[in-house]
């Protein structure tokens, strides 16, 4: 039971869900605006590298965060240029970004720091440390609430709170503002947006800026919060799990949060189950637990648990009628 529902597992669920949540929300803005983004992984990796490198050189986590966001937005703009302006294949462009970043980050890391592609170990102010929410001492003695507030909700890095705050904000932007309405229209029927006299390209570029911003935060969290520095392949498929979470959530912000929590939970449990022997079932093969998010997503895509319908115009370059 401790392995499945202990405070320890739930805390690490929150931590492991955070990058997934941020990246999935990034994908949400992009895909809702009609741009498919396979490059979440690459953007996160690039951001993690920029965060690790800048934080270590400047000695400040905040500069690391800033660098991560800048790099991620630049990569997002490259994706935008390829898929909006040059009307190229969006999937091909995303795949390309993943590879370019995976290669260049290690090369630059090796050249600058000579640690085989890693960035130096970060310490103290170079990392984004855990913060305590106000009033944990007061509440910690109350049963359940104390456990929930002091044990679970408090004591995470600031970006964790940013990620979970981004959920209601995203919902509000998408469904309660003019910008959000237009953004969703770009993904469903860009011709209608164009007819209304609103620029499709400009709208999609703006969506990609937000996508880059969120991916940047996700990458920074990996390098500055979850670990202390950048290591090779540190995203390890998280961008694709985020993509899976986005589909699993049927492109809806609040569902995205639950999907990210579910996949984060599976990861947390998977780590703890390694090598443990259980009564009756015996040893649970960890490889199978790690594959579960992907299996669940395929099952969902197959339409066996509800149907996942992507935004109608996503993946199609918009060509103005003449």
């Amino acid at each position, binding site marked *: 039971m401790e392995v499945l529902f202990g405070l320890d597992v739930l805390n690490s669920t929150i931590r492991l869900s955070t990058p997934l949540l941020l990246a999935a929300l990034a994908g949400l803005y992009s895909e809702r605006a009609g741009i498919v983004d396979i490059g979440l992984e690459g953007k996160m990796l690039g951001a993690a590298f920029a965060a690790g490198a800048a934080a270590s050189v400047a000695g400040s986590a905040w500069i690391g965060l800033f660098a991560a966001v800048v790099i991620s937005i630049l990569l997002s703009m490259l994706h935008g240029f*390829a898929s909006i302006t040059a009307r*190229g294949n969006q*999937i091909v462009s995303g795949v390309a970004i993943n590879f370019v970043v995976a290669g260049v980050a290690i090369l630059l890391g090796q050249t600058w720091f000579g640690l085989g592609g890693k960035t130096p170990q970060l310490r103290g102010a170079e990392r984004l440390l855990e913060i305590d929410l106000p009033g944990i001492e007061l509440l910690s003695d109350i049963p359940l609430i104390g456990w929930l507030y002091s044990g679970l909700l408090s004591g995470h890095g600031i970006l964790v709170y940013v990620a979970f705050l981004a959920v209601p904000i995203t919902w509000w932007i998408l469904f309660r503002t003019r910008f959000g309405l237009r953004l969703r229209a770009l993904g469903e029927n860009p011709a209608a947006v164009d007819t209304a006299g609103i620029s499709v390209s400009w709208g999609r570029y703006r969506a990609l800026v937000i996508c880059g911003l969120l991916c940047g935060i996700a990458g920074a969290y990996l390098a500055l919060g979850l670990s202390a520095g950048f290591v090779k392949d540190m995203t390890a498929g998280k961008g694709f799990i985020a993509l899976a979470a986005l589909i699993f959530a049927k492109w809806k912000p609040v569902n995205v949060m639950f999907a990210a929590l579910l996949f984060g939970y599976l990861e947390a449990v998977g780590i703890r189950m390694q090598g443990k022997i259980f009564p009756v079932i015996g040893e649970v093969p960890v*490889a199978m637990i790690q*594959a579960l998010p992907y299996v669940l997503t395929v099952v969902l895509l197959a339409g066996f648990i509800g149907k996942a319908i992507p935004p109608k115009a996503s993946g199609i370059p918009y060509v103005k009628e003449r």
Partner: protein
Amino acid sequence: MKNELPKWADYILLPLINLTVAFIVAGMVVMLVGENPFEAAYILVRGAFGYGGGIAYTMYYATNFIFTGLSVAVAFHCGLFNIGSEGQAIIGALGVALAALTLDNLMPWWIVFPLAIIGSALFGAAWAFIPAWLQAKRGSHIVITTIMFNFIASSIMVYALVELLKPAGSMAPQTRTFEQAGQIPKLDWLFELFGSSLQGAPLNLSFFLALIMAFLVWVLIWRTRFGYELRTTGTNPTAAVYAGIPPVKTIVITMLISGGLAGMMALNPVMGDQARIELDFTAGAGFVGIAVALMGRSHPLGIILAAILFGMLYQGGAELSFDMPNISRDMIIAIQGLVILFAGALENLFRPSLIRLFSRFSRDSDNTLAEAA
């Protein structure tokens, strides 16, 4: 003004321009790392083609990329983006292992090898079947399902190696080494014909298998009825249905062929080189296939050329990392990404200016013709 390029410009000039730009950017990365790009290029080409063993290694890597490039290209022709070649190759290795591990004590290699070919193709095809069927029947996007299937495949491989195939008492997650009959003969004789030798390079018979497959893919796509249906479905699905081409059948069979080709890639490293399955034996070849197919314009001949180019990058890159420690194998991954970017996503970047250039020339010649008349 014509809005089209002459065929030779479309198939040769434009890809060459894209490739050149990709390599110029790669050269800039080399400079950023603090090395001389021309010197790096020289070492790379010398390492890949300068001696017998180098050439053999280049051809060995190219074999992998021909298989995966063909796999991606066949799907491309049907309008499908199969990112799953990597996973299909991983599962294909299980088919190879099935043949090699059960029969290598009982039969000579010339029986085991054909059975392993069938095994790898069947397993690879089976792994492509579910995404294909979901795409055709349920409309689940094949890009997403094949990405998911890549991860599931590598999990299955970890499980299979650690729990099932690992010999008792061994720590490393790999199968036992295949006997002589479970290995594909090397091509020493081919190199001795030219007075050279393999110098330990694992180039083997599957290179010829790859070439045969390239020819068969050409026949399939441009010389058969099914190939016509496949291309029609790829260019205009609605028209294809209207013409009576069954979409579900076409998509599923195309993906089975694509998956089978990817699965056969496993033969080369597993039976031809290591003589056992190791974790990560694919070394990303499935993804290189995307770059190769894009660069080769999905034509088997182009794919062979592109595969040799990437074989050169892999082999020459390995030598380069000895001479220039700052340039590791990761440079090849970056170049691969740049090629995908410029030959794939930005393939039309230079098209408008090229069209303008060509139409200006043709207009000039039209004018001179008119004046002469």
